[in-house]
């Protein structure tokens, strides 16, 4: 019952999980961020896929990210009529360049819009949005 109530309250977009992405979303629930690394050619990739996009090998392993990186670019969103988001304005979107060498898109949280900068060190901040989903966001590194 409590879960039903929580689901109803959260109006923002939730990802749809499939076999390729399930381990990623299970890890975020444990507050861990994973990218992928190819066992055959060493290529690091994000988002998760069943194959390595450098060599099409199926031998792709999960690589735990430090969650640390730097802001590659960002924007403060002042307009989004979408359900859930319109009540959350303004919010910061950003590409974070992870220490593992891949860029990931997320929100920057615990940060005032006027404080976000390109090159700013950030760390993963996990947000449990529903009992089933945890999103990985980033906050200024402590």
């Amino acid at each position, binding site marked *: 019952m409590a879960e039903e109530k929580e689901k109803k309250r959260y109006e923002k977009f939730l990802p749809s999980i499939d076999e390729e992405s399930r381990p990623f979303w299970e890890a975020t629930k444990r507050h861990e961020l994973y990218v992928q690394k190819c066992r055959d050619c060493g290529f690091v990739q994000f988002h998760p896929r069943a194959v390595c996009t450098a060599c099409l090998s199926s031998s792709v392993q999960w690589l735990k990210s430090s969650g640390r990186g730097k802001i590659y670019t960002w924007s403060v969103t*002042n307009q989004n009529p979408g359900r859930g988001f319109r009540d959350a304005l303004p919010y910061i*979107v950003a590409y974070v360049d992870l220490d593992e060498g891949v860029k990931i898109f997320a929100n920057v949280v615990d940060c005032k819009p006027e404080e976000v900068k390109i090159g700013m060190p950030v760390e993963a901040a996990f947000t449990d949005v529903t009992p089933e989903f945890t999103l990985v966001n980033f906050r200024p590194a402590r």
Partner: protein
Amino acid sequence: MSLKKKAAIVGVYEHPTRFAPSKTTYQIIAESAREALADAGLTIKDVDGLFNAGGGGLLGSLALADYLNIFPTYTDTTNYGGSSFVGHAAHAAAAISAGLCKVALICYSATPVSTPMAGIAGAMAGDPSSNYENPYGVTIINGYAMTAQRHMHEYGTTSEQLAEIAVTMRLHASMNPNAKYRDPITVEDVLKSRVISSPLHLLDCCVVSDGGGAVVMTSAERARDLRKKPVYILGSGEAMRHAAAGHRDLMDIATNDSARQVYERSGLTPKDIDMAMIYDSFTITVLMQLEALGMCKKGEGGAWVGGGRLRYDGEFPINTDGGGLSSNHPGMRGIFLLIEAARQLRGEGGARQCKKPLRTAIATGIGGNLGYRHAAATVILSNE
């Protein structure tokens, strides 16, 4: 094998509507096709190639052929966003050159103002990547805004410089009786308009309008016997950029590749181009495409777009119809790049006809989203 001067644009029509609550999208296409074929001196019975951007099945080529009661033997529903129609012109030139069709009809319409799309303002709902974007409240404008932010960081580009582009487009729109917004604006007006997604202001963004249009193409040989002066395709290029599995450099846009191809295939250089129709979804989209086309050096677009250079009476006129920033943008405006380029090359620009003599024009589009994944399509057109 080169496609240089094998095919030509022989008929164009831009539907004048910007708000069409009483028209279906099919009707707008039919009306546009009628006028574009009349412009060419051809009839609907001549059409054996049908090119449109599909669109979730709603405007697939089979449904459209059914509506128009035509029986095309060659169709192409390539849809990679707003630049698709520039790609269609390239594909039509190839098909005509290979003898796969004789008269190609490229067409488009959409009515997002009179029948607004419900739902999220997300980038590309349904793509595998969107699961890692949409939960964060990504909007279309975010992608362009983050690209602009990075351009400002790497090259020192300013909001004032981007605003110059919007001001010029509005000047051109003031001379286009069909444009949606025609009252002149200043750089200050752009900077004072509200910030939608930093650093982009409301007036850095294209308008939303209803609309549509059609383009007719045929072989260069047949084109010479038709009503209007042919506008030849001298070359084309297509390319894509996306997240590259996390390795994307946002400053490297697809137009870098499509421009290289179009110059190689046409044998021309940036200096040979007299005017340009450049997809202006946002001011930053124009600036980065100009750099990619080699009109100025990478990173120097900010300074280059000022001083009236892009005006119809300037050194390098662009978007003489007022562009998406002021004239019309039903969602995918690539077809209007072809239409206005053809009108200019024929000398049919009226009050906004370029002051300099024109031999060549480049039409280039970015479809999808500059900051996430996009496709560039580019053609060089000539009246001789």
